[in-house]
């Protein structure tokens, strides 16, 4: 399949396998192995998109991930995916792509009007223009700007991918980033010495620059074969290292080929998290543009990209190109085109003389030395290139069908800079190079500023030797293998921008964000002198291409405007990610149910079979209510069983920490605000713990099981934090205590049996233990045989009723639970869920996370008397600050509507009738009364204890509700605690 643009099959394309695709509704044909960009060029397409701000027509500029313009939407079976790069998108049969940012069509774009009024749309335009009135921002400006600007649009209706990405963890001795000459040579040497090597190459094939020079084909093939046979070397193509995170950790994204995606059931990407002892950045150099008027015209392409299209895909980006170059390396394109039989309109080179120019002239190619291009007119295949001498004299025009430009090469140092590498200006290559501490790794080849393939290969091998020595396994010197010669070159002459008198019009430094050299100068005039400020003011270097091809040019324009050296300006700091990454790739398989693990209580299956609806609390799935029926009725039915007869609930999610050792009592005295060392064996005590700043951290009961043995319970939500708090203090603050802490939360299932008739049920299943009120009073605890299982019985209550908590090893939970249900059946026992548990504790005035919210002190919740007077404990000193007990603090109270028919809402603010705009506090918990009439709630209220008996309003503006309330003591039910002691 040949045509005017496809001269021959390239290195990567298969002439025997034509591929049909569709671009902007037009059916076209390419070859297997093409990218979308090479296929479009083969079809003669130069116009592929409209620019971001001015909607100027744009063509394909590069042949890789640095592409600023050729972004497309890909339309697949599962929706529209924006911002895919045509230059890296592998062509496959049936691919459907559309250009972006044009309306109604690519050839006629209504918003190209922006270009004509561009003098009114300078850098910072949005900041200056859309200031007032402030209400207009959300309603008018932002929707307008969002529609007019931006790149592709996300498809909110994109289908769900079953498994679009996976995450893999990798380990290596050495990560080699980049598989060009330097990277290949280094990987081979390290592999031969037996190092574990991962070589990550963003391209679909290995080879880098060696792919562009036929003299290197044999060498490349030999090395690739050797690497394929090396057991400990893994070469990953299509794998971009996205970021360097320090300590040898890297994130890399592998994009599967269309064939692999089919093979792996739709898998599209692999996120590889690589941990390596050393890294070698052989990331190559990226060609940069030159700023001159019209440098964004479709048909203008980087010279190296044109060479890539010719060698890799057999596609010529023009049949009569002009070239605008300032280095000998860029002449390679010229010579390759000449070898392919393509005539050149002429070469414009600012250097008066060079070895490459001499070679070109010897081949009868016209070279305009000491010259620049000051304008490009026309578009598509009819370009008129206006030439000027360096001294400003006009030097005629050239007619060409494309313009291939090269402003030199920037070593790709972004990843090294992320690891703290410093940049050094290298005049000989007119670019910055980077250096890394040896303990982290090295750079090699053109990434280090060493240009020329043979030089890069030798540099890569030398870097490998240095890394091997550094890792303690030096490599013996190898015999020199013959390599193709690097041609002798004349050094580059830096050229950033053409500024002759006739050079008028937009000269872009950033094609993706439509930033011109004039915008950079404007930023400098307006005070945005630092390169980071200039970047943010102009948006230069942002978005998908990260300003790879124009970043240094922008810095150079800024340096000139500031009148300082480019080395002083530097470049904006590159941050991860190196290329756009789909959220799906980061999520991997951690989606839906797999987003985080579920913790299930030992009785989960029983709860489920009993019809429970579950509520996630932290990672736990807790039964909320044993009904699918909405509303409070099922909750109250469960809770009333507790108040009137007996109920049972699963409290296995409570944190349980086993504390043992000679110092256990003293340690708990230090951790808790109240005293545990005096607790008798066989007794439980409620405790509160503070943070060192005096605020409440958690509460729960602690039981002394033996002289040196305690079991601590924590709230479900704080279980992990409290354990960590105790471990930290035991190891860092009071290591003198001989104590062992063991998390036994998962080992013990625990049930609360509550209600006036709970003793009858407990007595039926508990052997070896007399449960009468006298023998086993409130706050007693003992080991006992429960339904034949060795467990523990605690007489503690959270519901306000006579209650027992029964703990058994988790594996016996179903057996014991069933025995309790059977024993309670004649009494009408009900299992109750978290909602009923909450209703019961609110009515009783017990606090949980809503009140232990990190902002409450012991005094706020009425716990002052629990703070011990003697001895040290965490939070003791700072809890004594005057502000912690100030009388106007928010204090715990109960609230009840005057009209029992009105409901309360959590979060309602409490206000005085005469000062409704002043919030005095808020409702923290509320429920319909189980035994009490109407709703009851707990609230945090300023000077709350003094307001008991007063009336306030509870207002919820969100619901447009207001309730008249009476402030009461939080202990709304059985304040004498008679029931729990019954």
């Amino acid at each position, binding site marked *: 399949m040949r045509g005017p643009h496809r001269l021959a099959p390239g290195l990567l394309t298969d002439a025997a396998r034509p591929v049909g695709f569709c671009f902007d509704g037009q059916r076209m044909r390419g070859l297997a192995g093409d990218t979308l960009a090479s296929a479009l060029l083969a079809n003669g397409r130069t116009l592929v998109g409209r620019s971001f701000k001015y909607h100027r027509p744009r063509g394909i500029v590069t042949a890789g991930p640095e592409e600023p313009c050729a972004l497309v939407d890909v339309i697949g079976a599962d929706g529209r995916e924006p911002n895919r790069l045509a230059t890296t998108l592998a062509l496959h049969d049936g691919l459907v792509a559309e250009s972006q940012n044009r309306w109604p069509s690519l050839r006629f774009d209504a918003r190209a009007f922006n270009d004509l009024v561009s003098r009114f749309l300078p850098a910072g335009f949005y900041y200056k223009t859309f200031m007032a009135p402030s209400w207009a921002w959300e309603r008018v400006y932002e929707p307008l700007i969002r529609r007019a600007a931006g790149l592709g649009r996300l498809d909110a209706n994109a289908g769900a991918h079953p498994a679009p990405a996976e995450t893999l963890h990798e380990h290596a001795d050495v990560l080699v980033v980049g598989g060009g000459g330097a990277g290949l040579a280094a990987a081979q040497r390290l592999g031969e010495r037996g190092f574990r090597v991962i070589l990550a190459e963003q391209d679909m094939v290995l080879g880098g620059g060696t792919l562009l020079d036929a003299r290197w084909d044999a060498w490349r093939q030999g090395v690739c074969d050797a690497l394929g046979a090396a057991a400990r070397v893994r070469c990953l193509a299509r794998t971009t290292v996205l970021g360097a*995170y*320090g*300590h*040898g*950790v890297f994130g890399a994204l592998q994009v599967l080929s269309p064939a692999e995606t089919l093979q792996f059931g739709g898998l599209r990407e692999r996120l590889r998290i690589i*941990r390596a002892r050393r890294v070698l950045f052989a990331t190559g150099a990226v060609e940069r543009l030159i700023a001159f008027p019209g440098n964004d015209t479709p048909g203008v392409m980087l010279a190296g990209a044109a060479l890539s299209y010719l060698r890799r895909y057999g596609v010529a980006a023009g049949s009569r190109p002009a070239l605008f170059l300032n280095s000998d390396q860029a002449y390679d394109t010229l010579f390759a085109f000449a070898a392919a039989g393509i005539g050149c309109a002429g070469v414009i080179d600012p250097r008066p003389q060079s070895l490459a120019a001499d070679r070109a002239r010897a081949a009868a190619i016209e070279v305009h030395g000491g010259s620049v291009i000051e304008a490009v007119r026309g578009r598509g295949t009819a370009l008129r290139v206006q030439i000027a001498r360096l001294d400003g004299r006009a030097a005629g025009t050239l007619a060409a069908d494309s313009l291939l430009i090269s402003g030199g090469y920037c070593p790709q140092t972004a990843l090294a800079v992320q690891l*703290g590498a410093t940049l050094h200006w290298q005049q000989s290559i007119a670019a910055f190079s980077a250096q890394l501490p040896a303990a982290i790794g090295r750079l090699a080849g053109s990434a280090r500023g060493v240009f020329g393939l043979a030089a890069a290969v030798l540099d890569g091998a030398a870097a490998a030797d240095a890394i091997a020595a550094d890792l303690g396994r030096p490599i013996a010197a190898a015999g020199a293998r013959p390599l193709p010669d690097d041609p002798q070159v004349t050094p580059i002459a830096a050229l950033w921008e053409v500024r002759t008198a006739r050079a008028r019009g937009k000269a872009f430094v950033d094609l993706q964000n439509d930033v011109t050299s004039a915008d950079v100068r404007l930023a400098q005039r307006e005070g945005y002198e630092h390169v980071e400020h200039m970047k943010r003011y102009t948006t230069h270097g942002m978005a998908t291409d990260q300003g790879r091809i124009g970043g240094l040019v922008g810095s150079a324009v800024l340096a000139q405007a500031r009148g300082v050296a480019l080395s002083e300006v530097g470049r904006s700091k590159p941050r991860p990610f190196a290329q756009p990454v789909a959220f799906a790739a980061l999520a991997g398989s951690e989606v839906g149910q797999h987003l985080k693990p579920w913790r299930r209580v030992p009785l989960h299956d029983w709860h489920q079979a009993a019809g429970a609806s579950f509520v996630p609390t932290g990672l736990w799935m807790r039964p909320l209510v044993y009904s699918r029926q909405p509303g409070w009725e099922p909750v109250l039915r469960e809770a009333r069983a507790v108040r009137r007869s007996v109920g049972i609930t699963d409290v296995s999610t409570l944190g349980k920490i086993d504390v043992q050792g000679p110092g256990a009592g003293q340690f708990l005295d230090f951790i808790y605000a109240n005293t545990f060392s005096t607790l008798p064996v066989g007794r439980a005590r409620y405790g509160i713990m503070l943070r*060192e*700043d005096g605020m409440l951290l958690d509460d729960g009961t602690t039981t002394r099981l033996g002289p040196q043995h305690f079991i601590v319970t924590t709230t479900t939500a704080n279980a*992990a934090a409290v354990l*960590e708090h105790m*471990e*930290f203090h035991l*190891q*860092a*603050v009071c*290591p003198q205590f001989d104590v062992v802490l063991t998390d036994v939360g998962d080992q013990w299932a625990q049930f609360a049996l509550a209600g006036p008739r709970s003793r009858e049920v407990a007595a039926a299943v508990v052997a070896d233990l007399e449960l009468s009120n006298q023998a086993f009073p409130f706050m007693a605890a003992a080991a006992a045989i429960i339904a034949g299982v060795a467990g523990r019985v605690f007489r503690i209550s959270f519901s306000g009723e006579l209650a027992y908590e029964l703990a058994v090893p988790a594996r016996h939970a179903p057996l014991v639970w069933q025995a309790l249900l059977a024993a309670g059946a004649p009494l009408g026992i009900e299992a109750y869920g978290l909602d009923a548990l909450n209703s019961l504790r609110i009515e009783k005035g017990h606090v949980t996370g809503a009140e232990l919210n990190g902002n409450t002190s012991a005094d706020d919740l009425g716990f002052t008397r629990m703070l011990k007077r003697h*001895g*040290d404990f965490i939070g*003791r*000193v*700072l809890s*004594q*600050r005057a502000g912690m007990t100030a009388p106007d603090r928010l204090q715990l109270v109960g609230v009840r509507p005057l009209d029992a028919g009105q409901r309360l809402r959590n979060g309602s603010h409490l206000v005085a009738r005469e000062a409704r705009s002043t919030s005095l506090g808020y409702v923290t918990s509320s429920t319909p009364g189980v035994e009490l009439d109407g709703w009851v709630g707990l609230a945090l209220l300023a000077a709350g204890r003094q307001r008991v008996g007063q009336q306030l309003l509870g207002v919820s503006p969100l619901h447009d509700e207001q309730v008249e309330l009476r402030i009461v003591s939080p202990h709304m039910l059985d304040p004498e605690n008679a029931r729990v002691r019954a």
Partner: protein
Amino acid sequence: MLRIQCPWCGERDETEFHYRGDASRTRPSADAGMAAFSAYTYERSNPRGWHQEWWLHVGGCRRLLRLTRDTQSHEIRSVTPAGR
């Protein structure tokens, strides 16, 4: 991403650990007074460079480690168990 050389478990990812603050602070004695506890709780020097810090290996041995870490380069110079 820090890689921390746990003396008990070997080299592990930072995600296995919880940061527990400035290890150069010592809790004052019980009678040291309000100012000393206030300083212990709230005042930090936030240095650029070497810093002593506590890391608890919650996803491993649950031992508390004292790290000497450069806050700028993230280099870890030493890892020692608490109390040594």
